[in-house]
């Protein structure tokens, strides 16, 4: 809020700066309106002073004065333009100029700033390093201590695993890649470790998912089918390999299996949007156009599994959300009722389901 007030004040000040000269009556000095004659008069006076100082000879000064005089005459002949500061046309011009200033300055500023600025960051300023002076230095000391330790005990996979993400966030990507490789060598591959390693490879390669990185992600998914980061980068790889359909399906699947408000959801939505997929907004009735079959297939798969094998409250909640996202509100309500039956013994589970139905505003139709 404060930011908008500040921006408003800045805009007002800028507009006032333009309106001020338009609004006042001011006498314009003859010199300003016609400085040429002034220039030559001063020039003649200057020549006279030079002669007195002995810099110019009498004969030179005479010639110079004659020339300046000739130019003065010419300048006098030329300034016949009269200035038009008064009268009806001048008033109309002032009004038009004021309107222009009043409209153009705020509009330009808001359009440009609106398109490129980040005013929302004002309300929730990101955590700033500057606010905790020394924290970076502490980190530096910690890093150098770990480095010293690893120099002595290079077989300590844990140490490498700890230092790798720090390198990553410091932008020392090549060091991070080496650290992850060493950690994997000593600790063995794990889905999480492999995913982070692959992500570092991608960033070190300017965002390109190389075949090496792709192999790493595939290995991660083999180890844990739900490894989110790995699945995301595999989708990016498909996109980069020119397989938009495959990428779309993968993204849609990822989105469907993500909890609402997941930090990466926006990134995925952007990827999908760039692939030409319109995103359904939760609670609205517009069904997705492309990729809907895939999502529907996934959702029905989940429903079947929950019905036959049961599942956690979170999975039930996800199914309820999926139906809402697909615009199948009645099914969502039915699923909520079914979940309450199944989870009747589980108080925490019931709470989860209640929270979800409230969030999706399914309660009014609920039992």
């Amino acid at each position, binding site marked *: 809020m404060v930011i908008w007030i500040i921006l408003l004040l800045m805009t007002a000040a800028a507009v006032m700066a333009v309106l001020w000269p338009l609004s006042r009556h001011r006498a314009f000095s003859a010199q300003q*309106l016609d400085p040429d004659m002034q220039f030559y008069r001063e020039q003649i006076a200057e020549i006279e002073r030079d002669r007195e100082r002995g810099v110019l000879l009498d004969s030179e000064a005479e010639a110079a004065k004659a020339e300046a005089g000739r130019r003065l005459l010419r300048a006098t002949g030329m300034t016949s333009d009269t200035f038009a500061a008064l009268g009806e046309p001048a008033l109309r011009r002032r009004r038009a100029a004021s309107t222009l200033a009043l409209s153009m300055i705020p509009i330009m500023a808001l359009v440009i700033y609106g398109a490129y600025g980040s005013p929302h960051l*004002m309300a929730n300023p990101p955590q700033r390093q500057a606010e905790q002076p020394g924290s970076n230095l502490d980190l530096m000391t910690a890093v150098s201590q770990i480095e010293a330790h690893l120099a002595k005990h290079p077989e300590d996979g844990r140490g490498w695993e700890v230092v790798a993400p720090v390198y990553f966030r410091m932008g020392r990507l090549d060091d991070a890649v080496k650290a992850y490789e060493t950690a994997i060598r000593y600790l063995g591959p794990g889905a999480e470790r492999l995913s982070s390693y692959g992500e570092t490879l991608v960033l070190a390669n300017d965002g390109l998912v190389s075949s090496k990185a792709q192999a790493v992600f595939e290995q991660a998914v083999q180890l844990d089918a739900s490894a989110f980061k790995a699945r995301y980068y595999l989708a990016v790889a498909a996109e980069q390999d020119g397989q938009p359909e495959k990428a779309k399906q993968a993204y849609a699947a990822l989105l469907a299996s993500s909890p609402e408000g997941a930090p990466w959801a926006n990134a995925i939505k952007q990827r999908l949007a760039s692939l030409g997929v319109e995103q359904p907004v939760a609670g609205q009735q517009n069904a997705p156009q492309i990729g809907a079959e895939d999502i529907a297939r996934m959702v029905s798969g989940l429903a079947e599994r929950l019905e036959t094998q049961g599942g956690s409250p979170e999975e039930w909640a996800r199914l309820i959300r999926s139906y809402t996202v697909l615009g199948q509100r009645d099914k969502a309500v039915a699923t909520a009722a079914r979940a309450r039956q199944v989870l009747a013994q589980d108080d925490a589970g019931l709470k989860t389901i209640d929270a979800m139905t409230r969030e999706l505003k399914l309660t009014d139709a609920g039992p």
Partner: protein
Amino acid sequence: MIVEAGHFALALALGLSLIQFIVPLWGARANDPVLMSVGPVTALAVFVCIAFSFLALTVAYVTSDFSVANVVANSHSTKPLIYKISGVWGNHEGSMLLWVLILALFGSVVALSRNSIPMRLQANTLAVQAAVTIAFLLFMLLTSNPFTRIIPAPIEGQDLNPLLQDPGLAIHPPLLYIGYVGFSISFAFACAALIDGRIDAVWARIVRPWTLGAWAFLTLGIAMGSYWAYYELGWGGWWFWDPVENASLMPWLAGTALLHSTVVMEKRDALKVWTILLAILTFSLSLLGTFLVRSGVLTSVHSFAVDPERGTFILAILILFIGGSLALFAWRAPMLKQGGLFAPVSREGALVLNNLFLSTACATVLIGTLYPLALEVVTGEKISVGEPFFNLTFIPLVLPLLLLLPLGQTLAWKRGNFLGSAQRLYAVFGISLVTTVALFAFYYGGPVAAPLGIGLGVYLVLGSFNEIVTRSWSKGTPFAVARRKAANLPRSTWGTVLAHAGVGLTVIGIAATAWGVEGLATVKPGERLKAGDYEARLERVIPRTEANFREDVAVFTIYLQGHEVGTLESMKRLYVTRGMPTTEAGIMTVGLGQVYVSLGEPQADGSVGVRLYYKPLVLLIWIGSVIMALGGGVSLTDRRLRIGAPVRAKTSAAAPVPAE
């Protein structure tokens, strides 16, 4: 918070610039002083907005606010404070902000000099200036926004390019930009004169300080850049005919020509059309330089922004302004009234000759810079146009210019006497010749270019001061009188003399490089390396760790003909964050010459490759440039309103000039 406010201020500046463009132009057409008076106020407001924006970015750098993408990409929390501040313009986006800031600063100075500039000229000038500001603000906001945020913010930045972590970064770009942007004011004045269809000595009088100031700063900027490259790149050279260097040399040459033609216009009301054209071309060459450096067409330490989108945008700006102003020129120039006439042999004639040589030299540099690029685009063939080309084309053009320089300075306005002028230079010519012959004899067998070049330099320095002597002293004049007369000479004369003497010093410095010696060897601690009379002994190599780099320091003892003259340190650094090595040359100044040691790769057996140079009189290259700029500054303090007085033949005979 302040980052967003700074971003918004930049957007506001764009809106204000639009007003500054439209309203004063309209006012000038309608002859309405109220509308015209909007120009100055708006120009000031634009400056306040951009200055605030710049301050906001600086705060982000100083506090290491890594939510700003630009700070992440070019800063690091362990970087020393001075590089945090200079790092603001050590990158593409920030340097564009500095560019616009200086543009707005100059605009507000034009706005504040209310009583010395005719109102219509001021209104039109501010409008043209606003057009340039709009183009560059749009460029920044749309393609190179310094205020882009990244969320979540990384905890550490990627550090500044190590080559730029140097005090030179605090000095070189601001000086250079003041030069480039100063020429935009001359350009704006030229366009304003064309729009109004009126141009006279008053115009020249108003424009001259701007041109002079811009030229002085550009001179300093180029000299500083050259010295920086000399000590930082570790190649021991001071000028490489690199396209980026040429990009700054071209506006300098055109600006030098402009400076001289403005004198003719101010004094004699002549060369109007040519002066206007030069003002347009000078700024166009500045823009071309910006395009070459920023578009990714060239690769060098200056090419921060290798981005085709930005290149296209700058190309559009280039076409708009160069094409637009030249079209305006073609349309309005024939309507301008021609001024005073003069004989071929006269001060004016000499200045025309100066302009011809300078603009031709500028054209050869342009060809040498653009031809390889064009060839690569058309045929894909890469050729390198380097020193040999410029030695063959540029130097033959500059030599006659330098030889004629002292002569032109002594010629009278309107009608000159060539023989009379030459006579006054007999003594100067004699001394230079003796110097050359003496040096030639002393260094017999050495390079011929050095004595010849030094002779030329001596001729230039003495020829410049000869002007003071002939104007204040004649046979029989008591010294005190002569001194008073000399002190009474206009500042512009002193400025001219200093600037021309500076050229002479630079020429001496350049010529003396022919005597430079070089030694190259791989040495172990305790071993020696020889270059001419100088010897360097590697004492030890010690590792050292600083906040953001590690370095190997090689300590050398320097001997001159066997006697120890001092020690120096040369470094090989590795900047950790970027993993980038740099060479810090060790330099010891001996008189006006320098001993220069640069390290190569360290070998496995503890030895290290070392280059040792001795460069006699090398400092004169930069001292001369600084004196040139100083001359510009002295001339700038001359408040006299001058006029070219035609001197009749019989009066010149009575003038107290001949100094045989």
